[in-house]
């Protein structure tokens, strides 16, 4: 009678033991997935690299490489070897480059834009679109200081945002 009870007790104990094991393992898996499961937002780095490439393309030895005219506007992507296409049908990038006179702060007439216009800061509907704006100084052919402002918008929310 007693030995039968002990066997039953062992069964109950082993059930509890497995239940605790499952609970603890499940809890650890859940915690790890909460902590590491969300994507990391790498768009800041992405936009930084894109801006650096644009700066490298437009400015050489401290001077603007191309004259600020319609030829640059029309052939910007090919001149700078930029390909903003992604695997998705919709374009995920938008970039806008504007030029300012360093001394007067006046905006120059040339403005270059590439990519999905819907991602422009003033047009973007999604609150998850990432915006970045960086500028650099370079001299034009006449030795005049020009500030080149590069505005970049990146969507790619599914890959970078919870």
């Amino acid at each position, binding site marked *: *009678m007693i030995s039968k009870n002990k066997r039953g007790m062992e069964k109950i104990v082993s059930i*509890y033991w497995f239940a*605790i094991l499952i609970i603890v393992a499940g809890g650890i898996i859940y915690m790890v997935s*909460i902590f590491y499961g969300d994507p*990391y937002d790498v768009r800041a780095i992405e936009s930084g690299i894109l801006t650096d490439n644009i700066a490298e393309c437009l400015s050489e030895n401290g001077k603007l490489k191309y004259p600020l005219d319609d030829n640059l506007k029309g052939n910007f992507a090919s001149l700078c070897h930029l390909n903003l296409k992604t695997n998705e049908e919709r374009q995920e990038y938008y970039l806008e480059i504007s030029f*300012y006179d360093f001394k007067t702060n006046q905006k120059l007439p040339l403005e270059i834009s590439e990519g999905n216009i819907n991602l422009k800061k003033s047009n973007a509907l999604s609150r998850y679109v990432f915006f970045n704006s*960086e*500028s650099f100084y370079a001299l034009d052919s006449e030795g005049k200081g020009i500030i080149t402002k590069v505005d970049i918008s990146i969507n790619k929310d599914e890959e970078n945002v919870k």
Partner: protein
Amino acid sequence: MSNKIFFGKKAQASDAITWIVATLIVVVVLGISIFATTLMGKIQDRKIFLDDKQKDFLAVKSITSFLSNDANLELAKNANEGEISNFLKTVPAKGLNSPSGGWNLAIEKENETKEIATYDVVGVDVGGAGLPAFEINFESKTNHLKLKFWAECHGKCK
């Protein structure tokens, strides 16, 4: 016989209670851990920044461009504090790259170092000496000029 059964059940009940209590404790501890992890997961910064931002490409490009102009280089040679520090001060105002701690610019001329401009963004303490400097050598026919240009960051430059 009935006594025997009674004592056996008592032992079983106490064992079961021990396991139930143990399970409850495990569940409570796990619950607290999950809650803490959820909170930490929410507050942690999911944005990634590069650590090595003391050498900002755009900022270095800007300052080298500025000094590639003969007139501006002449200002640097003469260690004209006003004009160059004016340029650096306009950097954040004009949207040019600027780290949170500000940029430092020093010019070495004939073994004499002169910190001609150090500006900081309002509200950020700029101290920390001994940071590695990004050096650009400007060699002209008449003068040897060494320009040190580096970011002042505490911890990580973002």
